[in-house]
């Protein structure tokens, strides 16, 4: 796909920083964490999370529509509406057959599953909702977007755990390069802060247990990091071929110039200790972009705030990139949005490049001496021609986007 120039013409966000690009970006720039005590997790071993504030689905989507949508779909539709408006595209006038939808998601709708499982146990199978499956299936994310926007082209959901959002954007880029679509709505969404899912993460030791002060719990690259804080939300991008975007006079927010993907083939949850898999994905993204290892000025790292990930990723960046790029992990503010993380971070990286402002890594007060890369601990203005957005998923699945200025 080298040489294919793909434009980002629209962006939309629903994050723990707020509903919309503007509040989310402002919160990320502030460097103030969104983590807080979560009453839904009251009986859990870890009771902190990063929730989307003030999301009233009845108001945003209409009560009848919202009733049939799990929150992971609700988040995506709201972010998609913002992205399409930003792109200046009207679903009432476009050729839907040339519009694709590629979205990433990790776990579908576990909240719906857990609620209906309770119905099964207490009231029997005859009381289980007929909406259980159509609400919780991961593919419904793209299916509902197609219904909402009349997008009748290729329609799929990719699932590569915490790399899902990044993988989706990469696959969307491929669809444009292969001329299977003229417009692709892409990104990812996740809502899995439920008692069962979070118990699972806690039991595997992935979550920060810093409950005494949730706002300092997510601390990527800090020596005192002890795990991630789960977040929820969605990030959506509208992609078009650059020449098509320019021909219709669209505003280009940034360009997806490269995509790389790989597998660790190592362990079901632990990253490869030297970051070999993510290194392959970085090199593939750079090759796809026609760029060298010294051309990258900024990296939005996966940076989960877990001891193993941050160490392996930092070692990989130090070893692989020669240009001493300024690295940040926006998960310090947003928490880890799991299957949506890569999508939200792709949008944030587009904003970083567009504004020439690298957001801070929240809570980096005691940098890990074993991490020998340049991590932004405060907002840093700098011109950026080329940035990377890294994502690594359980199962050893890695995805990297190369993002350039418009």
């Amino acid at each position: 796909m080298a040489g294919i120039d793909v434009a980002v013409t629209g962006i939309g966000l629903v994050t723990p920083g707020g509903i919309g690009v503007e509040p989310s970006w402002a919160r990320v720039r502030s460097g103030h964490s969104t983590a807080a005590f979560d009453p839904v997790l009251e009986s859990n071993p870890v009771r902190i999370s990063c929730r989307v504030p003030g999301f009233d689905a009845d108001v945003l989507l209409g009560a009848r529509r919202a009733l049939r949508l799990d929150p992971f779909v609700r988040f995506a539709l709201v972010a998609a509406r913002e992205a399409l408006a930003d792109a200046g595209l009207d679903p009432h006038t476009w050729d839907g057959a040339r519009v694709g939808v590629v979205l990433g998601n990790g776990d579908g709708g576990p909240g719906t599953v857990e609620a209906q499982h309770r119905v099964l146990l207490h009231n029997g199978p005859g009381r289980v909702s007929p909406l259980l499956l159509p609400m919780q299936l991961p593919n419904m994310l793209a299916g509902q977007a197609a219904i909402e926007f009349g997008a009748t082209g290729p329609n799929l959901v990719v699932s590569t755990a915490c790399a899902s959002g990044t993988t989706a954007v990469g696959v969307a880029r491929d669809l444009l390069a292969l001329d299977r679509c003229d417009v692709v709505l892409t990104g990812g969404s996740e809502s899995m802060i439920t008692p069962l899912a979070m118990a699972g993460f806690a039991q595997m030791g992935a979550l920060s247990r810093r409950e005494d002060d949730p706002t300092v719990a997510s601390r990527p690259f800090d020596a005192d990091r002890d795990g991630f804080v789960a977040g929820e939300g969605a990030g959506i991008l509208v992609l078009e071929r650059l020449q098509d975007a320019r021909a219709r006079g669209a505003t280009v927010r940034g360009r997806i110039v490269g995509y790389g993907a790989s597998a660790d083939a190592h362990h079901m949850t632990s990253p490869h200790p030297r970051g070999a898999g993510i290194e392959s994905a970085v090199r593939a993204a750079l090759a796809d972009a026609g760029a060298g290892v010294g051309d990258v000025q900024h990296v939005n790292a996966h940076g989960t705030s877990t001891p193993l990930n941050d160490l392996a990723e930092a070692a990989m960046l130090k070893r692989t990139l020669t240009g001493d790029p300024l690295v940040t992990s926006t998960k310090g503010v947003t928490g880890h949005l799991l299957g949506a993380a890569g999508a939200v971070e792709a949008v944030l990286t587009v904003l970083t490049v567009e504004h020439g402002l690298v957001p801070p890594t929240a809570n980096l007060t005691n940098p890990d001496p074993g991490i020998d890369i340049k991590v932004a601990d405060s907002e840093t203005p700098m011109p950026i021609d080329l940035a990377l957005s890294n994502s690594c998923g359980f199962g050893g699945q890695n995805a990297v986007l190369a993002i350039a200025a418009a």
Partner: protein
Amino acid sequence: MFEQFKNLLVHKLKVSPDLITPEATREDIELDSLAVVELSLMLESELGVTISDDELLEAATVGDMVALMEERGAKI
């Protein structure tokens, strides 16, 4: 009985109250097959009336559904 039925449609299935008249068809109040199964479950759990989703699908209008409820002797 009509008012009870209407309340169920409005509060549980979020149907717009303006659409609900005795003459309204399932299509008029946008009840697809999934919503009819939900309605059947709610009639039983909320009002103690047993009407299968197949029976509801055979009822042409809201009025016919209410007549079914009256036949089954719903607890009020």
